[in-house]
C-alpha cells in the first residue's frame, strides 16, 4: 500500500513549448478575460507544492525579501496577514508583481517571465494561508525563530558603565 501511494507524481509546471504566443495569451487572459482561465490557474498553482517551493526559491532569489522580509514586511507591506491593499486574488497579485504599484513596488515586466511569476504568486498566497494547506510547504528550508527560553544560555546581570561621551550634559 505504501508503495502504491507513491505512484502518481505531482505534475510540474515545466514550460516545454515555445514561449512567445502561449505567454502573451496567458497575460491577456489574466488581465482582460479573467474568468474561467484565472480560476483554473488559481486552483492549479495553489494546489501544486512544487510550484510553491519554486516560488519560495525565486522570492528569495529576486530579493522580494529586501522589502517584504519573509512575509513580515518592512519597507514594503507584510504579506502574511489578511490585509491586501491591491487584492489577494492570484491575478491581482500577478498584476502587482508584473506592473508594479504606486509608492514603491517596482514593475518586473520583462524581468520576471510569466512561468516564474505564477509560482511566486502561489507562494505569496501560501504565506497568509490562502493556498491549499495540503500543498503548502510544511517546513522551512532554514532554521528560524529564537531559542526557547529554556535553551538561552544563562548570564549574570552586570553593571553597565556608560562611556563619558554618553553622559547627560549638565
Amino acid at each position, binding site marked *: 500500500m505504501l508503495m502504491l501511494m507513491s505512484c502518481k507524481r505531482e505534475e510540474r509546471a*515545466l*514550460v516545454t513549448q515555445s*514561449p512567445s504566443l502561449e505567454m502573451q495569451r496567458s497575460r491577456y487572459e489574466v488581465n482582460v478575460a479573467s474568468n474561467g482561465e484565472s480560476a483554473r490557474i488559481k486552483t492549479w498553482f495553489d494546489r501544486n507544492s512544487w510550484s510553491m517551493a519554486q516560488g519560495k526559491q525565486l522570492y528569495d*532569489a*529576486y530579493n522580494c525579501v529586501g522589502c517584504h522580509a519573509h512575509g513580515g514586511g518592512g519597507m514594503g507591506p507584510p504579506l502574511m496577514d489578511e490585509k491586501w491593499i491591491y487584492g489577494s486574488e492570484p491575478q491581482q497579485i500577478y498584476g502587482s508583481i508584473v506592473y508594479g504599484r504606486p509608492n514603491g513596488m517596482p514593475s518586473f515586466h520583462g*524581468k520576471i*517571465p510569466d*512561468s516564474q511569476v505564477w509560482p511566486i504568486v502561489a507562494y505569496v498566497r501560501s504565506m497568509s494561508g490562502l493556498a491549499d494547506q495540503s500543498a503548502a510547504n510544511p517546513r522551512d528550508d532554514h532554521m528560524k525563530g529564537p531559542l526557547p527560553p529554556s535553551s538561552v544560555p544563562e548570564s549574570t546581570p552586570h553593571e553597565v558603565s556608560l562611556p563619558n561621551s554618553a553622559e547627560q550634559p549638565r
Partner: protein
Amino acid sequence: MNNSADIIQSALNPAAVEAAHIARLWWIFFWVTLLIFALVTLALVFAFVRHARDATSEPQIIGEPDARSQSRTAAVVWSLVAMTVAILFALLIIDFFTGNKIYAAPDANALGIKITGHQWWWEIEYQNPQPSEIVATANEIHVPVGKPVKFELQSVDVIHSFWVPNMHGKKDLVPGHPTTTWFTATRAGEFRGQCAEYCGEQHAHMRLVFVAEPAPQFDHWLSEQKRSAPEPASDSARRGRDIFVSRQCVMCHAIQGTNARATLGPDLTHLASRKMIAAGELPNTRGYLAGWILNAQVLKPGTQMPPTQLGADDLNALLDYLESLK
C-alpha cells in the same frame, strides 16, 4: 578542437597523485580476488570431475570415515580459514596505507577553489586573500599540473557530490556543512567531472569540464579570467549588451564590468572562453546557445533557466554580445 564529450571518465586512468594510489589499490584487489576466484573455480571443477569418475565405477558403501581422514579434513578447512583471514588483513593494511597517503593534509600553499553545488550546475570560485583577485566562473575548472589544489565544497540546495574520476574519489557537497577535498594533478589533459549523488531531475546532466594544464598556461588563463568583460566592439554586440542588462537575463546572471551582478545563475563574464554550456551538457556553439536562451526547458527540463521571448534581431545581437565575452 577537443570535444570534451569524447573524454572517458575513468578512475583507472589516473592523472593525479591521489587517483594513482586509488587505481593501484583497485588493481591489487582485482588481481588478488581474481586469483582466489580462479582457485575456487579449479577446486569446484576438480570436485565435479572426481564425482563423475566415482559415479561410473561400482557403487560403494561409504562407511564411517576413519580418524585419519577426519583430521585431514579439519586441517584443510582450518588452513583455508586462516588463509582467508590473512588475505583480508593484508588487504585491510594496504587499504589503510593508501588512505593515509591520500588524506595527508595538503600543502598550506595549495591553490584554493570553492565549489558551490546548485541544481544543476557548479559555481566555481578561485580563492584569493585579495577580494578583487577572486575569480568566479562555472562548470569549468582549470588547475595547474604539479601543484596541490584544495577544494572547499558547499551546496545551496540539496546534497551533490564532486567527482572527477581521473583525479580523485567522490566528495559530497552538503548544504550547511562545508567539506574539503584535495589533490595534485600529475599530467595535463582535459577531463570530465560528474555529480555523483542523485540531486534531482537533471542529476545526470550535472557535469563539469576539468582542465589540467602546465603552470604558465594556467596562470595565463587565471589572469584572463580576472579581467572584466571587454567593452562590446560592434553595434550589434552593444545592442546585445543593452538587451542583456534590460531584460530578464540580468535578474540571475552576472557579467563583471556591467550592471549585471546577480548570483543566482552562472557568472557569464567569460562565457565564450568556456567549452560547454548547461553544466557540461551542450557544446558552447552559437546554435546551442540560442536554443538554450530561447527555451532551455526543452534541452534540460526543470532547469532554473526560464524561456525568453526575443525577436530574431534581438537574439542575434544578444548572441553577438555573448560570443564576445572571451
